[in-house]
């Protein structure tokens, strides 16, 4: 409805030059990937290796990582940007890598949140000290065409299934670990399953998800577990601090050490969330692109796979991951699916879905000052509490200087209420039994 306001002159280019990632570099460069989801990334890296990529997931997480981040990124930028950049620079400085032949890679979503700007931020940070290290964008939105990671249909499928497998493993592990009678049994099962998945990829059988998932379920069913009821704590929030141990100060481990069962929603939810947003935009604002029908097809296919995995999981008596259509309906109860920046409506949707499946204790993890989270995280807590009587949510801010004491203290407060609620529930159950 408005005309372009140019004044006939060509645009001025204020961009700095940066090293591109060219196709030949596949054979000459090592690619570093930040640590986010250990299991998922493990599977992905393994098959990429076999496809000829020299790729490595970073695991450095000393204080130096954060310090490098503080030095190289505007301190008001969100914590994940700081962690990721810090991890890259710390690694590049370690001397372990040939900086002439190393590249770094990160995902990019292209949404209205500032997270879409991680790539330029990392470039800027690397510029002074590692001017030859290219930054690769892994995205499905056609951004950074001159420096993107080439994703063909095959790789896309491999990635998608790696996410399904990673999610399933993560969920099964969390459901067994707190109850295992033999220390380390769950970790062992996870390790074996990862090997099994890797082998499946080797044989090109990664699409046979039903047998693969069945094997996982059978393997985890064998773990001997106690029947004691433990406090279940869901983890939701901004995608990086939700999953990354570096970002959330090892939240899962902390919860395990407190005798809780961490319930971490699937990464696939986020993938499907992104796909659905494209479809929603078309519906809400008529914003159709050539890709829109494609997104709809992809979404339907993923949903189909997800539902079959869910049914299978239920058969084995494990708590399945959320059905994404169910998540969408949960979101509708809290806010509009139009809230699509950052993790947007997915956060309250997961909180509601968790509450409905008996996990009403929740840590909502967010980087300090995260913009979408003002609305979709902290902003929805009141509504959720009205909807679910026992909803017990703590919003925790992660930040380079927020201390563990402060964070843990707040989580412990939430846990104290959680234990009380559990006791109350058991008391009521006992009362009901007696009757």
């Amino acid at each position, binding site marked *: *409805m*408005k*005309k*372009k*306001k*140019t*004044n006939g002159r*060509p645009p*001025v280019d*204020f*961009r700095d030059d940066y090293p591109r990632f060219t196709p030949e570099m596949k054979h000459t460069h090592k690619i570093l990937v930040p640590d986010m989801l250990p299991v998922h990334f493990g599977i992905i890296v393994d098959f990429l290796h076999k496809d000829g990529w020299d790729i490595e997931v970073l695991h450095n997480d000393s*204080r130096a990582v954060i310090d490098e981040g*503080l*030095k*190289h990124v*505007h301190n*008001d*930028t*969100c914590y994940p940007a700081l962690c990721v950049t810090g991890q890259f620079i710390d690694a590049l400085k370690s001397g372990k890598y040939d900086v002439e032949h190393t590249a770094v890679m990160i995902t990019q979503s*292209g949404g*209205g*949140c*500032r997270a879409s*700007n991680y*790539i*330029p*931020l990392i470039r800027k940070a690397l510029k002074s000290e590692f001017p030859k290290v290219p930054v690769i964008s892994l995205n499905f939105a056609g*951004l950074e065409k001159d420096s993107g990671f080439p994703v063909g249909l095959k790789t896309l499928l491999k990635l998608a299934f790696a996410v399904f497998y990673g999610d399933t493993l993560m969920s099964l592990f969390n459901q067994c670990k707190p109850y295992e009678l033999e220390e380390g049994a769950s970790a062992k099962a996870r390790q074996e399953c990862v090997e099994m998945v890797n082998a499946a990829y080797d044989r090109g059988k990664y699409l046979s998800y039903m047998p693969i998932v069945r094997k996982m379920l059978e393997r985890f069913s064998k773990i001997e577990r106690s029947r004691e009821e433990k406090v279940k704590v869901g983890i939701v929030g901004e995608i990086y601090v939700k999953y990354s141990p570096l970002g959330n100060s090892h939240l899962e481990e902390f919860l395990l050490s407190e005798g809780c069962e961490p319930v971490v929603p699937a990464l696939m939810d986020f993938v499907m969330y992104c796909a659905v947003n494209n479809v929603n935009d078309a519906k*809400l*604002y*008529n*914003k159709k692109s050539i890709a829109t029908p494609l997104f709809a097809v992809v979404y339907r296919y993923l949903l189909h796979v997800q539902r079959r995995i869910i049914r299978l999981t239920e058969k084995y008596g494990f708590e399945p991951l959320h059905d994404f259509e169910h998540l969408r309906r949960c979101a509708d109860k*809290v806010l*509009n699916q139009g*809230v*699509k*920046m*950052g993790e*947007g409506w997915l956060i309250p949707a997961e909180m509601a879905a968790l509450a409905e499946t008996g996990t009403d204790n929740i840590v909502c993890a967010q980087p*300090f*000052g995260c*913009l*979408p989270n*003002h*609305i979709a995280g902290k*902003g*929805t*807590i*009141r509504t959720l*509490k009205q909807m679910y009587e026992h909803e017990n949510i703590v919003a925790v*801010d992660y930040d*380079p*200087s927020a201390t*563990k*004491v*402060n964070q843990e*203290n707040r989580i412990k*407060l939430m846990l104290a*209420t959680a234990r*009380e609620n559990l006791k109350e529930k058991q008391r009521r159950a006992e009362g009901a039994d007696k009757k």
Partner: protein
Amino acid sequence: MAKFMGIDVGSTTVKVCVLSETYEILYTSYERHFARVKECVLDQLSVVEGKFGGGDFRVCITGSAGLGLAERSGVPFVQEVQAAFTAIRKYYPDADAAVELGGEDAKIIFITGGTEQRMNGSCAGGTGAFIDQMATLLNISVPEMDELSLKAEKVYPIASRCGVFAKSDIQPLLNQGARKEDISASIFRAVVDQTVAGLAQGRRIKGKVLFLGGPLYFLKGLRRAFKETLGLDDAHAVFPENAPCFMSIGAALYAENVDPMPLAEAVERIKNAKNSDDIVTGEPLFKDRAEYDAFVARHKASDLAFEDIKTYRGDAYLGIDSGSTTTKLVLITPDCKLLYEHYQSNNGQPLDIVLERLREIYALAQGRIRIAGAATTGYGEDLIKAAIKADFGIVETVAHFKAALHFDPKVDFIIDIGGQDIKCFKIKNGAIDNIMLNEACSSGCGSFIQTFAKAMGMEIDEFSKLGLFAKHPVELGSRCTVFMNSSVKQAQKEGASVEDISAGLSSSIVKNAIYKVIRAKTPDELGSNILVQGGTFLNDAVLRSFELETGKQVVRPGIAGLMGAFGAALYAKENVGEASTVVTEAELRYFTYTSKSHVCKGCTSHCNVNVIGFSDGRKFISGNKCERGAGLKPHSDELDIYAYKYARLLDCRTGPQGKKRRGRVGLPVALGFYEQLPLWAGFFEACGFEVVFSEKSSRQLYFKGQHTVASDTVCYPAKLTHGHIESLLDENVDFIFYPCESYNLDEHDSANHYNCPVVAYYPELLKANNERLTAQNFVMPYIDLNDAKTTVRALHKALKKYKLSRRLIGRGLKEGFARLGKFQEDVHEKGNEISAKAEKRGIPVVVLAGRPYHVDPEINHGIGKLLTSLGIAVLSEDSVFFKGREVLVNVLNQWTYHARLYRAAEYATEHDNVDLVQLVSFGCGIDAITTDEVRSILESRGKLYTQIKIDEINNLGVVKIRLRSMLAAIEEQKRRREKR
């Protein structure tokens, strides 16, 4: 049976309580632990042992600093809010809510209507510690402050988010001579506001409320402020007798669940609790004494020569730096020898200090010395200049630069860390090229060490000396004081020594300056000839930390703390004309002054104006934002587009059209509406609605909606929105219209045209957190205005109740867009007009670049006015951006409003007389990205970049210094250009 014992280890105190088997309170104690947690606990246990003998106890530890102790000693732990909850249920079963303020924590427990427990987040600042800090600032004890507060006559608005913010509000009040009584009461009010806004978040604190914790027990003024704000009578505000020890009682009650153990065993366990090695430590500051001595000797070289004031005869120049916390005076000879120096904490009124010292100087000089020139600088520059009739008042940055040049003509970087602020200047080609001041949130400055030393029960000198030879300085991070407080807490928990903490604090301050204020990537970026100054650098531990961190040897003048005053004296020496106007000895003898304050009723700003009357009949007025407050005719705002825009924006209604009246719609003048108001007013009027705007923004309006703010770290413009909603609800409109817009209007000069997440979806948050909003009275469709079809559809659906035809909606939108277009056209025109006038009159122009919502005077705090009063024409980003060329930037350029910033910057670089100042709201995540980009556009073409961060803070003192420094630097640049 065993007795119960609860030990509450807080951030500053240890509380112990013993209960009998029948829950009778036998003993309680309350002690400050001065960071020696373990020792203090053990001391108190031995008292318990003395009173009750050994025997078995069921022991439970609670409190923020108790967690680590409990973990390592194996004594059971209970979370402190849980402990409080246990005690409340036991002793006050009918309470509805409890508010607990501790040393550094604030908590609210809602008991009835859905139990909920809340603690302050990481940015909520301290409470008890905050009050201590403020008392230090006022130089009185906390009980004195309490007494004073009861005699208050008025309350000043003080930012309540964290100590640092409050300080920058209080300091100028002090400097202006406001009454301590009023300030004390204002501080307590700020604590209350903070608790209500930061913790209650959408829930009202009502019914029978318990008030717990030390500060609320000891401070009557604080109690009163709580009662008043929450509207509680005596029956509903309960202050238990044992409030300070309440948590320990709760812990003792909770101990019912744990196994008993002999007291001796508990003592033994705590005694043997290992210090964990979780904390990160650094290298010692000095290897040994010899290294320290060499360091001291090296810095001695840059001391000034002295001249004896008692014998010297001739001319002298006076420089006064009236800083935020200290006042500095120097008197120098024409050959720059030091005759007299003075450095003193303000303790309230700096004018008293200046007068007293001036009298002393005259007395010492005994008529031999003629003060040939005098200049003042610093926060109190204007007041002191007026009082002593000094010849010049100069911006402090200029003063510092002058002084630095004296010590090192090649200086290319100056860093000044004072009590309250950090200032850095880069020098290029002999002129100030770039100025960096700490923003309100990064002030981990000198006064922080001071407050901290006091908390440790030590003097600052003693405390910082301890750090010099610390073996393992603690790594404390580099952020604001609040964060540092909790880092220190953690270090204490882990058993770090006072020495290590002292050294750690020194290095934190340095890191804060380098990485947070300067944001240097590598120390080399600072420069090769660095000069450090400011009182904080007189502290050898800080100086050493700086040298270690930068890896450079720097110059620290012996008068590091007096550089501003020295620079002022130099300036006076170089620039004084015939005779100095400074007060004579005779005039000074009978000089007195009075100080009064009142609220100016000149306009809606309601400035707190302070009037100082001098005995010779002259007056000095401060606190006013415009000339009205000073009793003068306001200067015209014809060159201020902000004033024009705001008025023009609100003037977009013509009345409902058509015959049929459909109802009254409320539009909140907030966030995105600052631009789209004409559009929606036009739309609704064309559709036959009466359009009601929310009331104009003010602090009162903010307070009105404060209780529904869900996230305490969101930006101020967003927080204000809550007040606008309340005001519309009070207007009884039929409904409030507030659309969600992921996408802004596409102006085709960026890759995408998003709104920021807060602007896009704030209605969702409002709906979720304001209980008065319903689906009926709050209409919030999802709209993309770029697509007519879906917009019409969404509006049709959202306004179904009013049965608007699609045709009418289409017509309404057309009208709306026409009004929006007209508004923008008018703004552009006004921009042209101002540009033309400025050019004609040779006035410099500043593009005050922000977002549309920065047009609100409550958000921009009258910066536009301030600029015009400094003789500058003010344009806005949206009045010029289309004249700039399109730009390609490093970052993903995908937000409509932000794309304008880049083009406005490009525009500024193409015009000699135009500079750009970027307005940034505190907490704006997207500006963390845009600021660097705007800076690089400007700097790549040799322009200065100035950023002003604004929040609820109402005080323009710092902003003024910043703007004046910028103007001085621009002047200097121009002069150089002309020379060439």
